[in-house]
């Protein structure tokens, strides 16, 4: 496998084919938990973990499973991993589990995981599937954190509040009050804020993509013009 290939997988996951911004999958947990950056980070980590585990497993068994039963088998694999992650989290990261609560089991219904299993892992080798799971998961997590941060700053004027619930008091420095004595803007904390925020993020991504495309076009035009000048001269 060429390096460029791995590069493309990574770029797809982070940007070109981002789960939340381009595929627009997994919106239920995305919209529900992003009221703070900390919640977004927690769910993002759990989702990434499941995505990697399920991608690797599906890739390993891709030659064994018959096409007729592949979807139920994938669902079984994903559901088992999610349940195991939920139990482990409940046992070892009890505070984090309390914060994320219902959204851990809901990872099963995040269609991006089944989507990656079906569209990528069932057709690619283990290394590529692992990278795909990792980058898709991290790409999803980044959107969760950014959206959570946006809503938290606008809604409550803080950033990474209650981070210690997740990682202990060693990360207290992470919690910052961005706007002092902020009265709060309720809309941002409520579900409509999530829709508006996600819409803005998608718009921003499209804007950036358009700009880069235009710049590339101009660059090629410029080189062409130069070439023409050189030819005529």
């Amino acid at each position, binding site marked *: 496998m060429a390096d460029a290939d791995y590069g493309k997988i990574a770029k797809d996951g982070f940007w070109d084919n981002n789960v939340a911004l381009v595929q627009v999958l997994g919106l239920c947990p995305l919209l529900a938990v992003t009221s703070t950056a900390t919640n977004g980070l927690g769910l993002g980590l759990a989702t990434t973990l499941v995505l990697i585990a399920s991608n690797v497993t599906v890739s390993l068994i891709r030659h064994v499973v018959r096409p007729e039963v592949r979807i139920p088998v994938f669902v079984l694999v994903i559901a088992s991993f999610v349940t195991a992650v939920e*139990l482990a989290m409940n*046992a070892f990261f009890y505070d984090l589990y309390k914060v994320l609560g*219902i959204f851990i089991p809901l990872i099963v219904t995040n269609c991006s995981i089944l989507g990656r299993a079906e569209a990528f892992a069932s057709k690619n080798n283990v290394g590529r599937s692992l990278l795909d799971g990792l980058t898709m998961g991290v790409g999803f997590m980044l959107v969760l954190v950014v959206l959570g941060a946006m809503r938290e700053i606008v809604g409550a004027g803080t950033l990474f509040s209650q981070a210690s619930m997740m990682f202990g008091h060693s990360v207290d420095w992470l919690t910052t009050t961005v706007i002092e004595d902020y009265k709060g803007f309720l809309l941002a904390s409520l579900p409509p804020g999530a829709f508006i925020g996600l819409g803005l993020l998608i718009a921003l991504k499209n804007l950036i993509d358009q700009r880069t495309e235009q710049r590339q076009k101009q660059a090629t035009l410029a080189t062409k013009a130069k070439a023409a000048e050189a030819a005529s001269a």
Partner: protein
Amino acid sequence: MPWKNMLIGALILGLFAVAGTGLVAMTQEGTAERIAENERQALLENLHQVVPEKLYNNDIYADAIEVTDPLLGSKQPLAVYRARMDGKPVAAVIASIAPEGYGGDIKLLVGIRYDGTLTGVRVLSHKETPGLGDRIEVERSDWILGFNGHSLDNPKPQQWKVKKDGGAFDQFTGATITPRAVVKEVYNTLRYYKEHREQLFARSSDEAEDDLDAADKAVDRGVTYEGIEVDEEAANENASREKK
């Protein structure tokens, strides 16, 4: 050979079902004890918040009974934990429910000293509006601490209301219904306590023959009251668990 293909497909699916169930069963086996201990700790932590640890020396978690009374806001049996010092009753913690919250039930933990003054009130779970009604959580504002030291006659019964209704307790800007519901239920819990105090402390926790049953129920309660729910859906999930 459709038969053969179907059979192989079914076998593969069955195999993965067994493997998946096995994985979950193993994780469950390995974590069950820790999870139960976590839940016990979480409930104990809540109990310690409403009744200071230094006031008593019994195992408050085990010294629990279940009571049912309309004053406590629910038709379901609710837990009462008894704190004792050298066998003498010191305080009771009643897990009552304020049914008139803006988003439905607000689960409370009300700590009452033997003489009837409040040692502390905490919200275990609620479905109030984030940013408005959720200021009843101690993590978000210290409003709930305002109950400490009050009792049935302090303030006077007609003063057991939010200020907007002519009472002694603050409401929040933008949210009156939530504090109103909490104030009312704390008052009702105090009334219940006054009427039933002696019974509450006299009843033995190892009630009659179903010794083990009671212990099981205590564990179940731990599952239900596992701390403050941040999300509405988490609270819903709790509610549905209870119904089961």
